């Protein structure tokens, strides 16, 4: 037993603790504890009233037992009794027990709150502090209800002792965190803020945590704290190391308070007041300067405290992101730390530089440290430091160094710790995609990734490479060649087989001319991996085989033989068996034409956020590794998944949920964010789980802006045609629903919804017949009236049963504001006069965009006429330009519109300008038209 026994030692407690320590086994310990619990229980239940000391001792023993990790289900009442003792030592133990073992038993809470209330009003500072500590430790809702209004008063009262103020400030902070609705600062706000000026450093230290938290939630109400914080900081920073007496820590004046002041300032933008800002910049410079001074002590505490302030100052500089000079200085300082002998400093420098890398002012300065960071990735002995280095490389990556960084990360992956491999893989995949200048590099990188760390390559990553290859004509041949080579390796990862199977199934023909990769060689190569793979991969390979039959008729016999063998056609796995049976049948009965249609090359995937990025975000949470910046970058470069030229006029409707073969019979309508998991499953399932409904199909919508008749929608089951005519503010639309199958559609219903301001524009729509026979077509008429101008199109929802499965699809009906145009002929002079009249900035909408189609004059003219305006000749001095005028007729008003379209054939660009008497119309027309040319 230690010699020290301050205050009153409880000898019984010490003996008990010694006994426990002497126990040789867990069983012995439990036995001893049970004995003690029985003893305490009997004492508490005994007839003899216990004196305060005994009660305290037993409560303390119970506490000890609890802290050892055992459950305690009694003694709470005795602890509560101790609270009302007027002996400090008993009260203290009572509070400690309550703080550690809170019980939400409402009866007790009331008693506890009563005791606290008494102590708070006792005016004995020691008792008040105990009570406040207890509230801060427990912080329950009930306590907030009881004391949230009382504590602010204690905090700001003139006669409150400093130590009580300190406890009150942090107690209030805790209550604010648990029950912000109950802590109302209102009238106290200004007095609380002024605690920053308090003479007592301890009060400032405690109060600033409260102020920081409140400022984060109500920045405006607390903004006066900025100038107070700056002047306080300035006084500390410029003080000599001995001025602050006991608040100086290893020759560093008030390090905790300094950090908190700098942290508080990060809740606000840079001060607007020039003088305050100047003072603050001076502080920051002083802090940076001090980092260069020789240390006043060799102790690590000195340098830690000093650097804690430095890092907090750098955080503030990064937060402001407006002082290039300070940012670069910060970066240089961190650069020095990168090679410091203290691991802690290297770690923090790497971490802090990550945020500096995202500032435009310091990005270049950060990049100069690339070699050091790469070296850290290779040589640091601590995985958490290596992880920071990898994060920083990711953050500092841009087009100029992407190849180097990706190569380094790839080579690091070979030896990387298992705990960070998956994240590393995601990062490499993202960088490779984001900065791919040529796609062969991208494909190489991803395949390397699979080779090196196949186990950590998640579905998102290999789905993504396939999406990109499908969408990029120029890389398909290279991809086919590369996967073919990669598959030659005797042991290749299953993910490689998946990518290989998919890509050869789609694009194997591109390399089939070379006898070394002839169709049969390709097939044999794939099939040699088949038996080593899991079921989902085998399913994928079977689909690749049927695609081979289409691509290479000469492989048909071989593949049919494979499909026909018992291990396939009688496979115990239902999915595999079904695929084998159906593919075999398909290949034997379908004509070449049918086969070619069914097994057509996959349509491009629509542009969408990289699923890998989404995954990294999920992994790291928002705010990590500057994901936003990454997305911006992607938008700029954004060609990778762009769908390119093929997307625009692809005959087949590209559906993101399209399965491998595109022949899934449940309506592939969904624009749902395809859980990529559906990529391969359900190839032949008649009824998908539940037909998608939430998503709206608007593929056809834009094609009808400049025309009124045509096919709006078509899938394997259904074709919808429309014919429409408009006069003034009225319109009529005929919808034709054609059943393409030989089976009846049952319970066929359609509903039209008008979102937003379009309400009640559709006056009439007669219900349709509930049965649509196979091969039949039914018609529906919609009468439309334009009440006022609008932007959202009406939605047509169609539901029916086909073969028992509910089909549900929603289409945007192509009713656009321009349908209600009346063309207006006018002379050049009139046109320009009106053009000038419509000169308010909001009346004009302008867009500059790239030509999506050929820039043929006749086609453009036809489209403009289809738009419904009058095309005016001889108005624009430049004969290349097009000028139009028209009036939109709505029930409530007429909107005059003028249009000017300026093609630039050389740049393949247009500039489109609209001026209308109503702002919203200019905007809407501009949006609609910019996608037409």
């Amino acid at each position, binding site marked *: 037993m*230690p010699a020290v026994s301050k205050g009153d030692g409880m000898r019984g407690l010490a003996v008990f603790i010694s006994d426990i320590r002497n126990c040789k086994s867990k069983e012995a310990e439990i036995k001893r504890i049970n004995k003690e619990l029985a003893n305490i229980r009997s004492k508490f239940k005994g007839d003899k009233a216990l004196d305060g000391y005994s009660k305290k001792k037993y409560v303390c023993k119970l506490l000890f037992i609890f802290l050892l990790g055992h459950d305690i289900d009694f003694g709470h009442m005795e602890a509560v009794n101790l609270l009302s003792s007027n002996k400090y030592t008993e009260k203290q133990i009572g509070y400690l027990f309550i703080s550690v073992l809170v019980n939400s038993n409402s009866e007790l809470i009331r008693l506890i709150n009563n005791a606290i209330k008494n102590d708070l009003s006792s005016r004995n500072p020691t008792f008040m502090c105990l009570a406040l500590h207890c509230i801060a430790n427990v912080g329950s809702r009930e306590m907030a209800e009881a004391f949230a209004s009382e504590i602010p008063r204690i905090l700001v009262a003139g006669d409150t002792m400093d130590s009580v103020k300190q406890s009150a400030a942090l107690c209030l902070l805790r209550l604010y965190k648990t029950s912000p609705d109950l802590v109302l600062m209102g009238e106290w706000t200004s007095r609380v803020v002024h605690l920053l000026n308090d003479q007592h450093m301890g009060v400032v230290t405690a109060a600033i945590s409260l102020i920081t938290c409140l400022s984060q939630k109500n920045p405006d109400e607390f903004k006066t704290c900025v100038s107070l914080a700056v002047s306080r900081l300035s006084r500390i920073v410029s003080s000599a190391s001995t001025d602050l007496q006991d608040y100086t820590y290893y020759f560093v004046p008030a390090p905790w308070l300094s950090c908190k002041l700098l942290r508080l300032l990060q809740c606000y933008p840079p001060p607007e007041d020039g003088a305050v800002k100047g003072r603050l910049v001076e502080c920051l410079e002083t802090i940076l300067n001090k980092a260069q001074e020789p240390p006043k002590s060799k102790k690590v505490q000195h340098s830690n*405290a000093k650097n804690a302030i430095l890092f907090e100052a750098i955080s503030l500089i990064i937060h402001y992101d407006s002082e290039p000079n300070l940012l670069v200085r910060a970066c240089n300082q961190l650069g020095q730390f990168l090679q410091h002998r203290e691991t802690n400093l290297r770690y923090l420098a790497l971490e802090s530089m990550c945020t500096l890398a995202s500032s435009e002012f310091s990005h270049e300065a950060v990049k100069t440290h690339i070699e050091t960071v790469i070296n850290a990735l290779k040589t640091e002995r601590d995985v958490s430091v290596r*992880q920071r280095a990898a994060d920083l490389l990711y953050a500092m990556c841009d087009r100029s160094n992407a190849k180097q960084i990706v190569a380094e990360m790839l080579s690091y992956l070979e030896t990387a710790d298992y705990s960070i491999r998956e994240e590393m893989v995601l990062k490499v995949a993202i960088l490779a995609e984001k900065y791919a200048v040529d796609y062969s590099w991208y494909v190489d990188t991803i395949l390397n990734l699979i080779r090196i760390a196949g186990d950590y390559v998640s579905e998102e990553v290999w789905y993504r490479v396939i999406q990109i290859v499908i969408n990029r004509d120029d890389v398909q041949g290279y991809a086919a060649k590369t996967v073919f080579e990669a598959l030659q390796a005797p042991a290749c990862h299953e993910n490689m087989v998946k990518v290989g199977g998919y890509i050869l199934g789609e694009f194997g023909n591109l390399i089939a001319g070379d006898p070394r990769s002839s169709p049969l060689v390709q097939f044999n190569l794939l099939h040699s991996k088949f038996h080593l793979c899991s079921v989902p991969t085998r399913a994928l390979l079977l689909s690749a085989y049927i695609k081979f039959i289409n691509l290479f008729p000469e492989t048909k016999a071989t593949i049919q033989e494979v499909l026909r063998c018992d291990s396939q056609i009688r496979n115990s796995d239902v999915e595999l068996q079904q695929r084998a049976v159906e593919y075999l049948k398909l290949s034997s009965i379908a004509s070449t034409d049918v086969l070619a249609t069914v097994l057509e090359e996959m349509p491009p995937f629509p542009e969408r956020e990289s699923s890998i990025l989404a995954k990294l975000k999920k992994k790291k949470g928002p705010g990590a590794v500057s994901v936003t910046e990454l997305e911006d970058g992607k938008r700029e470069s954004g060609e990778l998944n762009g769908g390119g030229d093929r997307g625009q006029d692809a005959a087949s409707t590209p559906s993101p949920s399209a399965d491998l073969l595109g022949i899934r019979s449940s309506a592939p309508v969904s624009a749902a964010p395809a859980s990529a998991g559906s990529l391969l499953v359900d190839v032949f399932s008649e009824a998908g789980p539940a037909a998608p409904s939430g998503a709206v199909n608007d593929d056809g919508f834009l094609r009808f802006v400049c025309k009124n008749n045509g096919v709006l929608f078509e899938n394997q089951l259904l074709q919808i045609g429309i014919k429409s005519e408009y006069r003034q503010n009225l319109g009529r639309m005929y919808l034709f629903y054609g059943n393409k199958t030989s089976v009846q559609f049952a319970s066929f219903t359609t509903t039209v919804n008008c979102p937003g301001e379009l309400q009640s524009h559709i006056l009439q729509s007669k219900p349709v017949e509930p049965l649509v026979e196979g091969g039949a077509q039914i018609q529906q008429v919609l009468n439309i009236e334009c009440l006022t101008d609008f932007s959202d199109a009406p939605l047509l929802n169609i539901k029916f049963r086909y073969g028992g499965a509910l089909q549900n699809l929603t289409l945007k009906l192509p009713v656009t504001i321009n349908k209600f145009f009346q063309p207006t002929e006018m002379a050049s002079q009139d046109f320009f006069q009106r053009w000038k009249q419509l000169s308010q900035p909001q009346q004009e909408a302008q867009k500059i965009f790239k030509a999506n189609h050929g820039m043929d004059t006749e086609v453009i003219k036809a489209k403009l006429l289809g738009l419904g305006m009058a095309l005016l000749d001889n108005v624009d001095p430049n004969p290349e330009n097009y000028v139009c005028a028209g009036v939109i007729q709505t029930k409530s008003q007429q909107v005059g519109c003028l249009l000017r379209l300026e093609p630039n054939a050389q740049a393949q660009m247009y500039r489109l300008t609209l001026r209308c008497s109503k702002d919203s119309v200019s905007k809407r027309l501009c949006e609609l038209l910019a996608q037409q040319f």
Partner: protein
Amino acid sequence: MMQFMLLFSRQGKLRLQKWYVPLSDKEKKKITRELVQTVLARKPKMCSFLEWRDLKVVYKRYASLYFCCAIEDQDNELITLEIIHRYVELLDKYFGSVCELDIIFNFEKAYFILDEFLLGGEAQETSKKNVLKAIEQADLLQESQSEDWGSLPNEEIL
């Protein structure tokens, strides 16, 4: 804000636990087990910080004891390291060359000192003098009061 502080021995025995966020006992035990394991597995020269769940863990070993704090993302690691050091200094000053046994046998004092120093996961009073003054005042109160009981404390056994 600090979310919790744990003190444990090289053998993984928990000596002190202070939680500044409401958690169930089960959750507390799980966190403790996981963190004790993680920290004990680290080698001596490794850095004192690690990412753990969405928190940052700052730890330092003093003789046979590990002091381990979990702080939030925007909190300062280095200053937390010095929070630990200041707490050790306070214990040392109070007990006079503190050792693990002092904390075992006087665990309640360790909690009292911590409450004077940190409250609600934030520094309440960073001056060593002021914290010790508060604790010593309380001890004086105890001593003056213990006279009332006469000779009772010395004789008791269990």
